[in-house]
């Protein structure tokens, strides 16, 4: 589904990612861990098409297409979804309006007709219940006045409705209390399927207690310095990141 080869990315003149290689197959969950400033969020941003980054070498293929060449809205319509670390507020635009506009933009891209208003409402209400959200959320302005937990839940709601193929979760656990973390995790788990893949960017291991990854990669100084199974996350929890960073320097 996603093949990242020797990816080098700069912000201005400053290299942030220095040769990332990663293969993600359908149905897999990959956790990207690492200390602050290691390039985790840059990876999430470059995959989803945020501006301000320059690819200086390497390639990213998504379903055999060049992902870097695609405009962000095309990536979204092709099934790439970013759950934001800091979801933005859009005053005056209701959640349900945004959801419908987004779903229809994606359906149009796929050659499908616009969703019927009644069908849409049924779909949305089902997902709202799944995430234990109040239906009133749908009619409030996008993220305006939402608590941190509500914003993150709202991201997962959008994910549930838009049904992407590749979900990128950027520090989704940050700012969540344990109850909210559980609900968000259950939402993500309910979306697991053999043809949907996840990239979870996280600083802490605790998210991985709730969403079991197939692979864990440690990013340090713009490179993946170690990959392994879920047990690697536990090791990190115990030892911290410094032993890997110093390893890299030694290497």
């Amino acid at each position, binding site marked *: 589904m996603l093949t990242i080869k020797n990816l080098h990315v700069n912000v201005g003149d400053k290299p942030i990612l220095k040769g990332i290689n990663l293969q993600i197959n359908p149905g897999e969950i990959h956790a990207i861990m690492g200390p602050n400033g290691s390039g985790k969020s840059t990876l999430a941003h470059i995959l989803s098409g945020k501006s301000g980054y320059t690819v200086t070498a390497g390639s990213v293929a998504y379903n055999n297409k060049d992902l870097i060449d695609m*405009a*962000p*809205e095309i990536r979204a319509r092709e099934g790439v979804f970013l759950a934001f670390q800091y979801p*933005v507020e*859009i005053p005056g*635009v209701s959640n349900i309006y*945004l959801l419908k506009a987004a779903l229809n*933009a994606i359906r149009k891209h796929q050659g499908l007709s616009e969703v019927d208003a009644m069908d849409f409402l049924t779909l949305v209400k089902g997902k709202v219940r799944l995430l234990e959200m109040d239906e009133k959320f749908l009619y409030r302005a996008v993220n305006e006045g939402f608590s941190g937990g509500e914003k993150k839940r709202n991201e997962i709601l959008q994910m549930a409705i*838009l049904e992407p193929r590749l979900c990128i979760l950027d520090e989704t656990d940050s700012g969540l209390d344990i109850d909210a973390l559980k609900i968000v995790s259950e939402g993500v788990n309910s979306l697991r399927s053999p043809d949907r893949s996840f990239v979870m960017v996280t600083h802490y291991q605790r998210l991985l207690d709730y969403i079991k990854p197939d692979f864990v990669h440690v990013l340090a100084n713009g490179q993946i310095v170690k990959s392994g199974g879920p047990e690697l996350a536990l090791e990190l929890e115990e030892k911290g990141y410094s032993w890997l960073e110093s390893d890299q320097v030694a290497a």
Partner: protein
Amino acid sequence: MSASTQEINNLINQDYKQGFVTVLETETFAPGLDEEVIHRLSKVKNEPEFMLEYRLKAFRHWQTMRSPEWAFVKFDPIDYQAISYYSAPKRKEDGPKSLDEIDPQVLEAYKKLGIPLDEQERLAGVAVDAVFDSVSVATTFKGKLKDAGVIFCPISEALRDHPDLIKQYLGSVVPHTDNYFAALNAAVFTDGSFVYIPKGVRCPMELSTYFRINAANTGQFERTLIIADEGSHVSYLEGCTAPMRDENQLHAAVVELVAMKDATIKYSTVQNWYPGDKEGKGGIYNFVTKRADCRGDNSKVSWTQVETGSAITWKYPSCILTGDNAVGEFYSVALTNNYQQADTGTKMIHIGKNTRSTIISKGISAGKGQNTYRGLVKVLKSAAYARNYTQCDSLLVGDKCGAHTFPYVEVKQPSAQVEHEATTSKISEDQLFFCQQRGLSAEDAVSMIVNGFCKAVFKELPMEFAVEAQALLGLSLEGSVG
């Protein structure tokens, strides 16, 4: 990649869809303004003697005045002798009695604008007065309105048919001495709409006037007078467009509203005059005086305006809250793109006891547009327990535009309560990227964000026009991001 600020700035260009010219045989005065022109104007419109005197008085006063310079707008001095003060499609005899007699080209022009004058095709429940250059060419649903006792006709017709009402009310809210452009308008106004709603009548349909400037080198000076007698209710909407021309054209209108005891007037404007091209060449100078007198107790006037057009907008729809418990409202969306300039806002003058006013202003600047809110809230000594709430928000699209706010507050009554809130925000790259990451194009995203920003105002517009206003806003911002 998503839109960067640079790209947002680069992509501001839009097509003005109403920019066509209708080729017509017209009767047009040679450019120039003196007392002789006013005599001719009054004569060609077959006006009663008192109107000629009114016009001359206004003209003489205007000559003693100077063009105001306090607004936050820049333009070269206007040569008033280079403007033609009358242009009308050639008529057969006394003017059209039915649609069959109107020049088919004029009908076609309105059709193109989406305003079919044929009553069968018209939106049910909306009566239209169509003003083409200097004259009203058609008023629909006159019969149905007459049954309800409502008078809705071109003001030139009202001058002849209802001189008593005109004498009593014309200039009673905006006197000819009020300001430079109001004085000019009083001297040379050509047409506009006249509305009278009798006591206790709820006007059975929306009333609407559609102003179209077509001829080159002419000014449009329209005059609208709406009187809502005791306990009556009316909702009125005006729309405006003009062809694309390289030279600036002047539109100096005066609108007067009078609300008697327990009466309500809702006045909505969707202004889309030609804004000039991307380099700021051409476009309409929209210098307008709009004022309402809430004369009776418990009267209410609500102004809603969506201003997307014009090279320069200079306009302050105001309410004089004379009666006790009178209510004044002002809801405004003003958008400036490219080199457009807007200096707009309102005046709320509290005179009666327990008078209340609400001001919601949303200014959007894109391109190199300059957008100014200027508002006065004045509470006189007599206005015990008066209340005002003002909310004034500005949204910037790109980084070459400007937003300015000049609120004036004068309170002479200690029991009054006045609130003012203001915000300035920018469409952030993060908001755009978020929307794009959900599958929306950058343009749809901007349009959605702007519409969200304007929601509090749009909900005040009559249903069918709210849809039109949203579409217009989308259009005016077309290409403002990439």
